[in-house]
């Protein structure tokens, strides 16, 4: 069934594409002289028709993109195939001359390719709009005036207006860097090939092979072990926080409990202290010479310190527990808000029917919470998959293990491991491959869950 859907999507996309291609072809065939000129000078025909707003927008777009392409893009674009050939070096007088810089060639090259693509799209928009306008004129209809165009920005096209800046922002600061890093996965960019000292170049699928290499030095077993722990961690971190947070909220909300505000405030104060401070302090509490071990030792309960951080299993459990300390206050707040909204008569009638407290929780509270907090659970699961702070600040992924390669530790999540691989080892090519794999795993999980959420299926339920 899914196969069919994918096929349908592909077909729909193909049709969309060919229809637009035909539109453009048609527009070219029927272009006036003014429209032909505006194939070179965008917006020319619009100016003639006094559609200044559109004309200025098109022309400004063209000038900007041409500047990117010819201003600096061109010289780098021509070297994209090799990512540079000329090496720099020291001159006899001790100064240095720099050669090609693979990093900039790739980065500017990508910018230039994207600019060319945008220019083509703009060109198509330009001529299709010319064609539509001319057609309207020849049919004797009036064109939208500038003031209409302007008004439409705040009415008919209001969605596009308010989405423009966010879309651009995401494109420049999220999409372009991601495209860049995906490209890096196909190069040999690492500490031995760091510009400007050395060049890096394309190596095809070489790096991907390593991740499925399960030999002694291969990445494979390390990757899958870290991935496994990441998934388990996120599961525990999300659901334990969720249920215990809810339990605390129910406890505070209990009839007959006084000072509700005080209990909540006590929990919430912990949110305010920056994690870099609070987690470091908590981490130290459990150290071999931390307060807890010293206390137990002084009481004569232990002779050797409990290896909270040095034993992999202890460390994993401890991290999950400390994460409760971090997460329960947030969940408690949310659950409190929700619990107050469950209609009280539901509980009342259940009580009359003789339901126990647990039955009421299972039949009323839980389904209600699950429905409302589904999206929240999904985002917090994803957040936990990439939860850097808790792991890094508590024990930096340690203990490390002889059976893991590339600096991975037993409590490392994929993202903390990536930090080691990029920042400490400068092994960008491996990091890019791991990143792509992380991305695939998390996005598949979340898209599946996303589709299953009742609140998404039933998006307009409330409206």
């Amino acid at each position, binding site marked *: 069934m899914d196969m069919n859907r994918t096929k349908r999507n592909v077909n729909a996309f193909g049709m969309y594409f060919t229809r637009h291609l035909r539109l453009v072809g048609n527009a070219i065939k029927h272009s006036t002289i003014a429209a032909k000129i505006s194939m070179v000078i965008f917006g020319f025909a619009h100016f003639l028709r006094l559609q200044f707003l559109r004309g200025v927008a098109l022309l400004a777009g063209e000038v900007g993109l041409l500047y990117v392409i010819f201003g600096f893009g061109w010289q780098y674009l021509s070297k994209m195939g090799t990512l540079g050939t000329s090496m720099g070096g020291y001159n006899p007088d001790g100064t240095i001359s720099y050669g090609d810089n693979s990093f900039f060639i790739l980065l500017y090259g990508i910018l230039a390719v994207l600019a060319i693509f945008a220019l083509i799209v703009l060109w198509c928009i330009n001529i299709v709009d010319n064609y539509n306008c001319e057609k309207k004129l020849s049919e004797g209809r009036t064109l939208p005036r500038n003031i209409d165009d302007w008004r439409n920005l705040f009415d008919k096209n209001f969605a596009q207006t308010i989405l423009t800046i966010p879309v651009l922002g995401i494109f420049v600061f999220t999409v372009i860097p991601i495209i860049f890093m995906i490209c890096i996965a196909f190069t040999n960019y690492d500490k031995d090939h760091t510009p*400007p000292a050395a060049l890096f170049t394309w190596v095809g699928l070489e790096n991907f092979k390593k991740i499925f290499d399960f030999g002694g030095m291969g990445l494979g077993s390390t990757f899958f072990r870290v991935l496994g722990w990441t998934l388990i961690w996120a599961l525990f971190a999300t659901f334990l926080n969720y249920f215990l947070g809810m339990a605390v909220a129910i406890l505070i909300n209990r009839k007959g409990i006084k000072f509700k505000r005080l209990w909540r405030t006590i929990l919430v104060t912990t949110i305010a202290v920056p994690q870099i401070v609070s987690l470091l302090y908590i981490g130290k509490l459990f150290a071999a010479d931390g307060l807890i071990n010293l206390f137990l030792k002084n009481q004569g309960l232990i002779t050797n310190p409990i290896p909270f951080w040095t034993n992999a299993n202890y460390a994993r459990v401890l991290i999950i527990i400390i994460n409760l300390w971090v997460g329960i206050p947030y969940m408690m707040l949310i659950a409190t808000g929700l619990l107050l909204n469950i209609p009280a008569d539901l509980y009342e009638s259940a009580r009359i029917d003789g339901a126990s407290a647990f039955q009421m929780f299972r039949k009323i509270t839980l389904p209600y919470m699950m429905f409302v907090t589904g999206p929240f659970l999904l985002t917090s699961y994803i957040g936990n998959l990439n939860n850097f702070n808790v792991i890094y600040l508590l024990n930096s992924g340690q203990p*490390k293990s002889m059976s893991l390669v590339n600096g991975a530790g037993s409590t490392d999540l994929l993202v903390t491991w990536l930090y080691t691989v990029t920042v400490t080892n400068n092994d960008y090519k491996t990091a890019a491959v791991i990143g792509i794999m992380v991305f695939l795993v998390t996005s598949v999980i979340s898209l599946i869950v996303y589709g299953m959420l009742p609140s998404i299926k039933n998006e307009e339920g409330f409206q």
Partner: protein
Amino acid sequence: MKRKLLSLALSAGLVASSLTSLAGCGKATGEIKIWVAENVVEFTKTQVAAFQQANPEYSGYTIIVEPVGEGDAATNMVTDVEAGADIYGFPQDQLSRLVAAQAITPIGEADSAWVAEQNDAGAVGAAKVGDVTYAYPITSDNGYFLYYDSSVISDPSTLEGIVADCEKAGKSFYMEINSGWYQPAFFFGDNGCTLTYDTDSTGAFTACNSNYASDAGVVALKNIIALHKSPAFVNGSSISNATNVGAIVDGTWDSGAAKDLFGDNYAAAKLPTVGGVQLSGFGGFKLLGVKPQTDKDRLEACKAIAKFLSSAEVQLARYDEVGWGPSNLTAQASDKVSSDAALSALGQQLAFTIPQGQYPSDYWSLATALGDSILAGDYDNASDAELLQVLQDFQDTCNSYAQ
């Protein structure tokens, strides 16, 4: 475009500056950025100002001193050489990485000779990769030794005695056995093992010389395991983070904190023996590097400043100010330096250490992995044969880091 404009502006500036210098009334100008550790920022500022006063030909440069930790400095330089500092301090183990990233310039024949003549042999070796000298040594104190509380430890000469004293007093003995830097103390020297790497002059690793997988290695490993089993042992090497110190293996950078902590009972000694054999370790050095420059005048200016900052009188002044042990032979011979408790402990220890060469970054995480496995108790009950296998794996992995 921007880069083009920039280079245009630069070359215009170059022409202008060479014209003015031809006219004989101008000086090279520009900004020279220096990165040093936080505690010597003010010191460096004063010294640089004095330097510019004494050398008016360099007074046209604006010199900026920023606090950037020595480990961070190397990482930053490798990330983006262009934005990095022109002169920066770093621990010597970062050198090959900097050389490989062309973030450090060879200092030329004249200065190489000067460095070789002024500094102790270890420091001179540390500033070299292959046969090329890349840096100006500023300290010879980047090694470790023992700080202890003399009210707790009666005899600091054997590890067994230290541990027993700590156990008795309810205090702890600290040593960071999961660090590739401290761990070799058990293996190197008279303990009978080595682990070094050969590099070529571009900073690439060509060979690994190691004999960890041997009977001597097994003995060393067993010594570490025995230490870890003691209730008094704590893994760690920072006095500031240690809460229950009886004795700690640490370096001179912590001498201030050690004096604060121990008060009147402050004492320092060379590392103890274990099973009758002296613990070894690394002798390390701090260096000043100069970033490769495209302009000749600037290069000369940077080199002159770096040379000055590593000279005998500045090293001595730096010792007075922050207690860093000089690498300069003249400075080392001064009375103040030779009578310093921490430095003389380090000096005694130095006889048993090997000068720290270059190690690939993977080595450090591998050593941490070995140490963490010991700390986790993985080898607590292992037989000799099993331990030998562990060391064999360790050695094979070390070998694989050299091409």
